[in-house]
Every structure is written in C-alpha cells, then in structure tokens.
C-alpha cells in the first residue's frame, strides 16, 4: 500500500504571513528608533544650549551685582562717615574746640556729598523696586536677589526640562534597539520554520511569542 507523501507546504503561507508582519513591524520600529534618536539629540543640544545661556547669565549677574553692591557699600560708608563726623563736630563744639569742629563739619559735608551722589547712582536707591520705603530705611534686598535669580533660574528650569527629555528619548531609542534585536531573533526563528517541516509550528510559535513580547514592549515604551 502506498503511503501518501508528506505535505511539506503545510503552514508555509502562515510562516510567510508572519515573516511579512515581522518585516513591517521591524521597519516601523526602525522608523520609531530613528525618530527617538533625533528627538534625544535635539533635546541634548537644547540642554547644552540652555546650560550655556544660564552660565553666561550668571557671569553677567556677577558683574552687575559686584558693581551694584560696591556702589551701595561705599554709599553706606560715606553716609555713616558723614554722620560720625557731624556728631564728633557737635561734641568738639560742646567742649569749646570750635576750630576743629568747623574743620570736621567741612569733612562731614564732603562725605555727605559723596554719599548723596552715591545714592543718586545706586540702583538700590534710584530704582523704585528696591528703594527704601522710609527715608532712613534699608533697600529691599530680597526683591533685588529674587529679580537677579529669576532669569538664570528660568534658564536652568528649561535646561532641566531639556535634559529630562533627552533621557526620556534616549531611553526609548535604546529600548527600540533592544526590541529590534528581538525581532531579528524572530526573523531567525521564522527562517528555521520556513525550512523545517516537522518543527515548523514550534519555530513559528516561538517567533509569535517573541513578536508578541516585542509588540507589548513597544506599546509600553510608546505610552511611557
């Protein structure tokens, strides 16, 4: 009795369809990987650019603060010097030393002139945002420091956001490469399924498991 010849083409179409699905999946994933890489590179560039801008802004603010604070310190020193000389002149006058008192009063006037000019030039007195609210009050240093820190802080916030975006997209790009490797394994298994008759379904099943795993992983990465 003749035995029927084994059908070597069984499930071959299924394997072909699976190979086609895997190819399209891999091609799409390759596109996603390239896109994630581009986004990571751009975010990395932005992160470096903002870091540079923040650093430059800090240098500028350093120059400005040094100027503002030196002017303010000299102005305060001149004001106090003028007051001390005026008090001393009064004491000397009280003690009958009128000539010394007159000389000291003149010195006091010179210090006062310096202090008044300093007040007119200093941001801490001329700018209404920081100027003292009362005649003998102190300038609003808190407001000054808050304003000084605002622009570098904004830049650092942008830099941090760009840096976070870089890590996010770089992680995605890396994961896509790992998934592409899984798909390469699936390709290998499908190739074995194509050539093997007895183990065709086992190899094809293994490839399907790997492709499913890759699809779930891809979905998770895209949502994350």
């Amino acid at each position, binding site marked *: 009795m003749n035995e029927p010849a084994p059908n070597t083409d069984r499930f071959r179409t299924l394997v072909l369809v699976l190979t086609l699905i895997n190819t399209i999946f891999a091609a799409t994933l390759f*596109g996603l990987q390239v896109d994630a890489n581009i986004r990571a590179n*751009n975010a990395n560039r932005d992160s470096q*650019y903002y870091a540079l801008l923040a650093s430059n802004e800090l240098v500028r603010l350093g*120059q400005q603060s040094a100027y503002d604070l030196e002017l303010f310190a000299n102005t305060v020193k001149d004001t106090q010097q003028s007051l001390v000389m005026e008090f001393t002149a009064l004491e000397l006058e009280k003690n009958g030393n009128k000539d010394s008192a007159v000389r000291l009063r*003149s010195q006091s006037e010179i210090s006062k*002139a*310096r202090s008044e000019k300093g007040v007119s030039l200093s941001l801490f007195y*001329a700018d209404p945002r920081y100027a003292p609210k009362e005649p003998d009050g102190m300038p609003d240093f808190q407001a000054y420091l808050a304003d000084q820190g605002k622009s570098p802080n904004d830049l650092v916030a942008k830099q941090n956001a760009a840096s976070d975006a870089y890590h996010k997209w770089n992680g995605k790009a890396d994961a896509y490469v790992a998934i592409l490797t899984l798909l390469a394994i699936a390709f290998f298994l499908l190739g074995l399924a194509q050539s093997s008759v007895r183990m065709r379904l086992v190899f094809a099943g293994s490839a399907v498991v790997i492709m499913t795993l890759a699809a779930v992983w891809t979905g998770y990465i895209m949502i994350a």
Partner: protein
Amino acid sequence: MTEKQRLDPARMDVMIAILIALVSLTTALAAWRTNVVGSRAADANRQGLIDALKKGAAQNEDWRKVYEEAGYASRFAIESAAADAMDVSKDETLKAAAKNLRQYLLPSMQLLSEPLGTQEKYLKSDGNFDIEKRFADLESEAPDLLAIDPQASFKLADQYSSEQRWLTVGTVLLAISLFWLGLAEIQSGRGRTGNLTLGIAVYLLGLLFFLIVEVVSIVGRGGVL
C-alpha cells in the same frame, strides 16, 4: 513575446534577480543619503553650540568692560561731587585740595571711565548711566560676533532632522520592497507574480516618496544639499 514566454520561471528568476540587485543598490544609496542628512543635522547642531559659546564669551567680555567702565564712571562722579563740596567749603585748605583734585586726579579718573562716564548719550535723565546702551554699542562694534546666530544653525539642524525622519520612511519602504522581491524569487506559481507586482509597486512608491522628500527639503533650504 507570448504571455507564456514572459512567465517562464527561468526568465523570471533572472529578471527578479536583476530587480533585487537594483533595489538593493537603491536601498543602499537611500541609507547612505539618510545618514548623510543625519550627519548634516549633527554638524549644524555642533556649529550652533560652537556659535553659542563664541557669542557668549564675547558678550561676557562686553559686560565685564561695561561694568568696569561703570565702576570708574561712578567713582569719578562721586569724587567730582566731593570736589564740588570742597569748593563751597569755608576751609581754604579744602578749596586748594579741590583745585588740585580737579587738576590731577579727576581727569585721570574720567579717562578710565570713557566713554560711559563722559559721553552725553550714556547719561540717563535721572543722572544714572545707560549701561544697556553702552553694551549695545559695544556689541555693534564687533559686527562679526553680532552676526553669529546659534538659532540659525539649530533651525538648519531641525530641517535636516525632519528630512532624515522622512527619508527613513522612504528607506524602509525600499527595504520592504526588497523583502517582497525576495519572496517572489523563492516562490513559484501565481503567488510569485503577485509578490513581484507588490515588490515593484512598493519600490516605485518608496523611490517616489524619497525623491519628493529630497526635492521638498532641498527647496526648503534654498537649494542647499
């Protein structure tokens, strides 16, 4: 040539093999071009960062110079006020000191504060110095540095990156067509013709897509490859 002759398996084998060679070559060229575009994007980004560094260094130097002038200008203004106070003093020694200050010290201080402390255009109505205006003038004194625009390089990089994305899609289409042609080569019968037709269609679609992306991108960049 009859239909039968055209579908002769041996002839088909050779024809598909030639097609596979052509598509492989096109795919390789497309992959090369996509990588070139990616490299151009990276170069433009790198240039933008270099420009940002150069511009930042120049600006830092300009700010340093402006505040240095401002320091000298304020000291000159304060010492001038002190000399004025000495002038109106009843003390003759102070008047004499004021005269000498004006003759020897103040001119030197004024020289150091130039031009912020000496030019009218830098004096605000409230008597303060226009530091921003002086900075803007210093910047305009170096037009080559003023012309540096990192954002222009970043914009160019974004254009290349966008092109790279779409070229990747085109390359993927070409690779898929290669897959179909491969199937056509190993198969026989009716499925073979179907796979061959699909392979050629995807190849032509990929090629057309690739060319359209290239033309649109090059025109968008003003003719720059």
